[in-house]
């Protein structure tokens, strides 16, 4: 009886790993694809003006809307929780200077899209030490604007 109880507990934990962690991996991949594409789409709009920043936000949001919207949770849920931050830099983004609403739009050449989703947990929520209804998964993508070069915008990381 004791052996059965221990074995069932281990089995439940393994099932939790398979179901919940597997789901989180899928969501991470989906969010990463969105972050990369959205940052690239936004980087094209950076032209050193405040309007450019607004258009960058709209360009990123456009990929989560419409008939061909990118989604998460095995392509079933709309991506809604993401933010854009901007920074200046020469060839690469200046470290630790990301701002969501930068004062100096003229200097902004790089955009970072950070997207997150709360993945519902099914079995891991009962595991001692976790006991959460959902686990937050985040992904981020960075792209830069390089006007005048062959590729006007490029993914950085």
């Amino acid at each position, binding site marked *: 009886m004791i052996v059965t109880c221990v074995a069932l507990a281990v089995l439940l934990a393994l099932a939790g790993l398979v179901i919940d962690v597997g789901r989180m991996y899928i969501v991470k991949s989906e969010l990463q694809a969105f972050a990369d594409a959205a940052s690239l789409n936004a980087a094209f709009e950076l032209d050193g003006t405040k309007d450019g920043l607004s258009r960058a936000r709209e360009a990123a949001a456009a990929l989560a809307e419409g008939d061909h919207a990118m989604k998460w949770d095995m*392509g079933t849920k709309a991506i809604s929780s993401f933010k854009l931050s901007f920074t200046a830099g020469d060839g690469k983004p200046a470290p630790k200077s990301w701002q969501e609403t930068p004062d100096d739009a003229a200097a902004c050449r790089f955009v970072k899209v950070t997207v997150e989703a709360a993945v519902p947990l099914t079995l891991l929520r009962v595991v001692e030490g976790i006991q959460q209804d959902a686990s937050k998964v985040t992904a981020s993508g960075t792209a830069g604007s390089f006007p005048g070069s062959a590729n*006007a915008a490029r993914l950085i990381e």
Partner: protein
Amino acid sequence: MNIRARRGTALLEFAGSLLVVSAAFSGMFQLGYSAYSYNRLVSAVRDGARYASLQPYGSASVDPEFSRTVKRLVVYSDPKPGAAAKPVVPGLTEQNVELIVGDRTMTVTIRNFQIDGLFSKLNVDGRPTVTFPCTNGTGK
């Protein structure tokens, strides 16, 4: 209880637990394999869309050969696969990959595909979908 009766009880318990455990493991395999396959599809579609986005801005249509190359990349992770190349997910063919050409975007999605999880099948149609802006050219 004598030894023979105890053996009989143990056998019955084993048979009963075997059913439960085998069902549990089958379910775990099913879910795990489906998740693994879908994750591979997401990566393949992402790579295909990124590759397709190398087309210049404003491409109202793309060269059929380029379109085929993109589909091969999604299916085989290789734009020029060899004769022995295997699809990233068993059963995936070029007919299951759709390339949608936008004004300045390339969208790749999977159509009418089933992930065969041995015990049941997961229908995949219109997902995963990945859109990338065309990056080759100076449209702006």
